[in-house]
């Protein structure tokens, strides 16, 4: 059997609540500067229980009309690039441009046959709501021609694939909050199999009333109005997640291709694994059984032991059930094996951007690996008793993390574990 090709991360792009570029994101992670702010979801006459979000700064996408949007200076988009986007499509366009520039890919390389684009988002309930309203309000129900392509799941693929002239492959992944981690996993496999030299992996989500407030009916969102304490994964006071949105983009590439292009990778992606809980629609297995299986599969795949891992970027969203299940899974896999990696959830800083969280946190892990730090647990005061024995740093540690694991879990019990290592390998 031919030796497996090695896969590295060569480009990053961010539009997140804690920064709209790599340098700002890194500074926020190091300083534990959160991106959560008060947000008025339904107007002053309809105060809701949900009061905060991980807001996206320097963009105004409140209107369903692209011509009313504003975005940071430095980007330049023509009307025919914006007309069919949802708000998260604009974020994704910006973050993808960053990642491509960061990876020093030329337009010809981006659209050669060896480059694919994998993406994930929930689509845009906001745009769908708008266009269906227009359609139902028009006597002949003709709506508008951009309604479908700007709103349905897949809108990222349609738009980014066209904009960047992607010719390798263009597809999407849907597994709720594990979606962009699945995209990264399958991207890694495709490069290993030699089908592509690189895959641009995109996760993005709207942040608006239509995207977030439906989660309020599930009692999944915190009703805390204090941006400084609302998102506190693993803390005894966790009482629901803080929603967020934005876009995160990674360029995964074969190590040979990166070397030939003389690009210094951020990190290596050693492998990944997945599992399913087979338990409940929205709740994880209470002891994290599914996540345990995914972690153990990932270690087998990557030929690692729990003791090899230095840092776990947890999925923990600040919901009591989710945080506890993950903590118990980590104890089963690591503590029972005598291992004690640092564990943190960066959602204490960012809030939870749903399907993009896997890509965003993989990007954070790549930064941590190249720059040598371990993000802390923002707003953690008194750990939930389920976390007993876990190493939960409060502050960011300025140490090289070693092997890094990033967890993601989604509705229906989807679990994904991604494994990264420093590059070059020690």
């Amino acid at each position, binding site marked *: 059997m031919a030796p497996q090709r090695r896969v590295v991360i060569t480009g990053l792009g961010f539009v997140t609540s804690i920064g709209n570029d790599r340098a700002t994101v890194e500074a926020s992670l190091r300083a534990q500067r959160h991106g959560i702010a008060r947000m008025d979801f339904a107007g002053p006459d309809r105060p809701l229980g949900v009061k905060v979000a991980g807001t996206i700064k320097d963009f105004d996408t409140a*209107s369903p009309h692209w*011509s009313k949007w504003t975005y940071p200076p430095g980007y330049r988009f*023509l009307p*025919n690039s914006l*007309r069919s986007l949802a708000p998260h499509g604009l974020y994704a366009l910006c973050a993808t441009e960053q990642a491509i520039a960061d990876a020093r890919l030329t337009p010809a390389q981006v659209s050669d046959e060896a480059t694919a684009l994998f993406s994930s988002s929930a689509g845009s309930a906001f745009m769908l709501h708008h266009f269906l309203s227009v359609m139902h309000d028009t006597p002949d129900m*003709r709506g508008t*021609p951009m309604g479908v*392509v700007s709103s349905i799941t897949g809108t990222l693929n349609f738009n980014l694939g066209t904009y960047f002239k992607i010719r390798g492959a263009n597809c999407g992944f849907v597994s709720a909050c594990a979606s962009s981690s699945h995209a990264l996993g399958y991207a890694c496999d495709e490069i290993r199999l030699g089908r592509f030299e690189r895959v641009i992996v995109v996760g993005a989500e709207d942040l608006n009333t239509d995207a977030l407030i439906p989660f309020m009916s599930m009692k999944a969102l915190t009703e805390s109005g204090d941006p400084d304490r609302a998102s506190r994964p693993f803390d005894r006071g966790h009482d629901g997640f803080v929603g967020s949105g934005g876009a995160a983009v990674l360029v995964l590439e074969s190590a040979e291709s990166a070397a030939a292009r003389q690009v210094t990778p951020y990190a290596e992606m050693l492998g990944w694994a997945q599992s399913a809980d087979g338990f409940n629609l929205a709740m994880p297995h209470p002891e994290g059984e599914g996540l345990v299986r995914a972690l153990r599969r990932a270690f087998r795949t990557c030929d690692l032991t729990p003791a090899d891992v230095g840092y776990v970027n947890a999925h923990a969203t600040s919901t009591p059930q989710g945080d506890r299940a993950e903590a118990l899974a980590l104890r089963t896999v690591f503590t029972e094996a005598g291992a004690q990696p640092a564990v943190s959830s960066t959602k204490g800083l960012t809030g939870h951007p749903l399907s993009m969280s896997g890509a965003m946190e993989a990007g954070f892990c790549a930064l941590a690996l190249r720059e040598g730090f371990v993000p802390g647990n923002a707003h953690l005061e008194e750990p939930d008793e389920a976390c007993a024995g876990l190493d939960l740093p409060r502050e960011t540690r300025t140490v090289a993390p070693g092997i890094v694991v990033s967890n993601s879990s989604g509705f229906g019990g989807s679990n994904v574990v991604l494994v990264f290592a420093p590059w070059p390998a020690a």
Partner: protein
Amino acid sequence: MKSESEKIPEEKLREKLEPFPPEFQELVWTYRRAPSPEVLAKIVNGIMDYHGGEVFREQHAQKQDAVRLVEDLAFDSLTLVDLSFQAEEFIGVVIQLEDFPKIKTLGELQAFLRAKAFPAAGAAC
């Protein structure tokens, strides 16, 4: 051109104009009160500017009415459908999709709409 009773209601027109700049909105309201070939031409250019942005402005400065919708401005089928809806809503003229093969340039679009909106003046334009 549509009769007064067939025109889009004012409230709906206001909604349709929301994505456009105020000066364009004013042109459409002017046309609604007193249609004229001159204002029609400005509205058509405004619709082209909305869809084509700076590419339209550059191409228009060079080629005037000879600007080609598909080749020069990269308008695709969705843009042409959008444009036809806007012509109907703002000018009251229906462009059928089968008309588009005959409309390749800005000048041809202007002439088509003018002839439909002002049939009596068509020969003189």
